């Protein structure tokens, strides 16, 4: 039996423009700090598991919902499921986590959470995503890894 998508007709938003490359970024001497935009660029193109659309187009992730603290080595990402009862919320959160684990230096502590009040089982999802062992266990599951890899791969 094929499962139909939770949200069959999601609202599609405009894709933002690519980051403008400034002359400072070409300067060998200057140090570019990590900023919210850079984290956003890492996850904006992750595909939604249900639709051939990116998380950016669905506004699941937004630049304003990302916080970076370079000194304390902290990255916090809040994501917003398209509908409050989305069953894919955990999977999306996991994809974001996995992508950030792979793409960010290990000095950062990454937190991925559902934006407050946007999902019915917000706490359960947050708890799952914060539990290192459960994340690790999920990544042992070949089927799950396959889906996550496919979501992330379209860069």
């Amino acid at each position: 039996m094929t499962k139909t998508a939770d949200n069959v007709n999601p609202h599609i938003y405009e894709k933002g423009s690519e980051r403008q490359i400034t002359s400072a970024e070409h300067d060998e001497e200057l140090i570019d700090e990590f900023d919210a935009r850079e984290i956003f660029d890492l996850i904006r193109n992750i595909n939604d598991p249900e639709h051939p659309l990116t998380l950016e187009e669905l506004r699941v992730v937004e630049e304003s919902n990302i916080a970076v603290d370079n000194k304390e080595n902290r990255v916090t990402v809040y994501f917003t499921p398209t509908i409050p009862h989305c069953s894919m919320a955990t999977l999306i959160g996991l994809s974001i986590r996995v992508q950030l684990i792979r793409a960010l230096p290990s000095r950062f502590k990454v937190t991925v959470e559902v934006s407050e009040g946007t999902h019915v089982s917000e706490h359960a999802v947050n708890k799952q995503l914060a539990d290192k062992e459960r994340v690790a266990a999920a990544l042992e599951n070949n089927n799950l890894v396959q889906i996550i890899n496919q979501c992330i791969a379209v860069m």
Partner: protein
Amino acid sequence: MTSVWFTPQFAEEIMKNKDLFVEIQSIITDLLAGHIEITQLVENMGGALTDKDAENREKGMKFFTKLLKELPKNFLTELQLKFISKFYIDRLKDNHRVIPSVIEGYLAIIDMDNYKVQFCGEFLTTLFREVACQSQLRQDRYNIYLIINKLIQMDLEFMKTLGPDFVYGVISSMEGERDPRNLMFLFTTLPHFIKSIPLGHLTEEMYEVIACYYPIDFQPSPDDPAAVTRQDLANALNPCLCATPDFGENCMVLLVEKLDSSLRLAKIDSLKLLSESCKTFKPETYAPFLKTLWSSINREISHKTDEELKMAAHQALSALVAKLATTANTDQAFENFVKGILISMQTAIAESTTITQFVQSSKVLLTTANASKESCVIITKSMIPAIIAYYEFKTSPKLQIASVEFLGDLHDLAVHWQVLDQIESQIKEIPRMCLTAVSQPAKEYQIAGFKTLIRVKNILETDLVLPFIEVLIHNVQYSQDNDLLSVSVETVHAIARKYPELIMSLVVKGRCNLENLTEDKVALQKRLNLLSNLASINDFTKIIIEEMLKIITTNESEAPKVVEALSETMSNTSLFSDQKVTQIESDHGLIDSILIWLLKEIHNQEHLIHGYVLISNTISSLPPEKQQKLLEKHTPSILNKCADEEIYFLILESLYNSLHQSVYDEKFEEIMKLSLCLALKGVNEIVRTKACVLVAHFLNKAEYGQQFELLYELLKNHLTSCKRDDTDICPKLIILYGWITKALIMRGSDMFLFWLQKITNTITNTEYCKQASEAIGLIMTDCPNHLTAKQHCRISLLYKQRMFQSFSNLTDKIGPSTPDTKEAYLLSWAYVIGKAPKSVLNNEVLKISPIVIDSLDYDNKDLLLVMLEVMCHFTQAKQTTISDSLQTVLPRLVNLTKYVKSMDVRIKSLQCLYEIANSYRTSLLLPYKQDILFDLAPSLDDKKRLVRNMAVKARTRWFLIGAPGEEKPN
């Protein structure tokens, strides 16, 4: 002994002897020589043709058919053919074994010169009655179709007289045909048949027989060497389905049904059929179906991802609108149809929240308007006010900007269909709208507004000029943004072409008045740019150029800026054509004034560069005679000055470097000598380089023969007279060799090899290897200021390729390089490889790959960048030379990801790693995966963001290797 075919035993022989076919040529020779009559021969064969046993008759007919096929086409007379034809027709009633030869034989008969089309009536009647076409083999069915087709080609009028029986026969022969090749043949011939033979009451039958194939669903067998593809069949079928207007109604029913199909191919085919059908069907045919057609087209046109489907839908819509437009004056249907489109698209635009949605709907409207004059009027009339109102909603900046651009598109279509007069009141709102847009402070609005204004400049009214100019002049003087600045200048230029007097009074004599031009220092340079741009318009040339030249000659402090502005705008050939430059030079003596200024300021080097460029560009635009005159006027005095101070040589060079190839005078030798001398002994480095350039230009341009010989001789004499032991000269000499080689190879002369060899020989020399690689770099690098087509130099095609080959051959001959010279050696290679066409590299992978891999160990940024680039290229092409050396390559690349001196090297090496992961087989890469992931981790924390981005790309790609979800054919 006489041959067997002279006797009645011939029949026996045909039945018994299988090898008799080899004798056919001899029989034909006998026939042609008149040794035997055809009647006699047939009589001798008689036994075989009428034998009781069908097998023997088959042999007989086969033999006869073969004979007919081999006979010269003009041999048989009409009477003979008539009898043979009758005989063959009779044979159609024979056993099924005989039929294939009969059909094949008749095909040969039709081809005879004396065949009369009247013979075929009976043949066809009997054929259709006696032979069930679809029970024959593929080739025989093909022969039947071929016969029918040939007959139609032969005499269409006669075939028409055969009436409905013939049509019926054709229909029943092809009904049920399944072979793709036969279908291909039928589909290509049928449109002609249907168009030319009246179908009568059989129209519907004919249509049904064709329509049953629609839409084509077919997969060619994979081992078919020359397979007919589905697309071929589908393309051929469409013209059959709409070959005659009589098919119209049936075809439309089918079309509407298939448009709603869930199969993508059915939809695409139907849309293509719809476009195709508009060529033949009458507009009335579509009337009952318009609503359904539009809703189907609309659905496909708004498809999000399938570009092919979308394109097909656009084409169908365009064809349909154009077709219906032919009845615009007689029928309401057209107007209703277009209005229907208009209403649904207006709604879609009003509801759109993203650019994609907006563009999608606006494109539908543009397609509709583009299809016909009438639809253009309807669409533009209501869309222009609608879009202006839409802009006022202030939805989002992007949408507002898109709507301004859309107005420009609508205007262009109105111009295309020449309907401006019909929509006058609407269209003139567009410039007003542009004014609203450019009054916004945001750069994006202004750029969009100005760009649209440039498109609609012809409908701009006088009262709007002033407000536009206010904004424009403000931009021109104070804008920091280069895009906005250039668009603004362009806009002023556009308005100036429409309203020269207004711009003259508002800009040239008003806001940017030349009199007080120098008062406002800040905006001076920008205003000068605008003015020199405007100078390209005839009405302004005189006043602006004169004023500028006056400043150059009188005002010392501002002159450099004026020269810079002039030099920059005049090098833009789209503004200043050669004629225009020539006219300016002859009317205002541009070069004279610049020269005076240069001579006066000669020791103030930094400002003068624009002056040299301006002189050289101006000279290059002049015709040869003018160049010659200028040289005669100025050379002697400047030469004198050169003797005192070498710096004057720069002026000389700017005068001489852009001459036509035909310009030559006795001074050339003196200048050549001077250049050679300065190239080797000049104190100032710029002077040395310019001297080399001039030598190169002379060698490149001189006509072969006396002129070239003379200069070449001068060159050689001068070089031999130089002292070899003067170590100071050696590096300069090698550079000069570089220029000489470049000049010669670019003109396609073989003499370059001599000089190139001199350079390659020094590559192994510890002391001078650096200069040698520099010289190679010089040969391969294009420079916008030297040896260009604009400077009338000869540039032979593929000279870089030639250089690659020659260099490659020469390096084979030089000795082994020591560690000291290896880097220079590799660097020379890098210059050659980096600039040679990629296709050449692909042929020399085996030779280049080791050099590339070797180079990755050297600490030289230029070398590494080129080699990494080539490595990426090879990897993308999945070259095995790289995958065979992964063990060496990967650690070197990883090492380079930490290259401190250049972020570009880090980025490129990471890109190489990404490409490797992307290109090669999992089994090759998997052993390295864990190491690479570990080694790439530090790059994720690189201090430069661009490096980090590439590191992320490479590392996430390596994560996927061998992991579930990786999409890579292994």
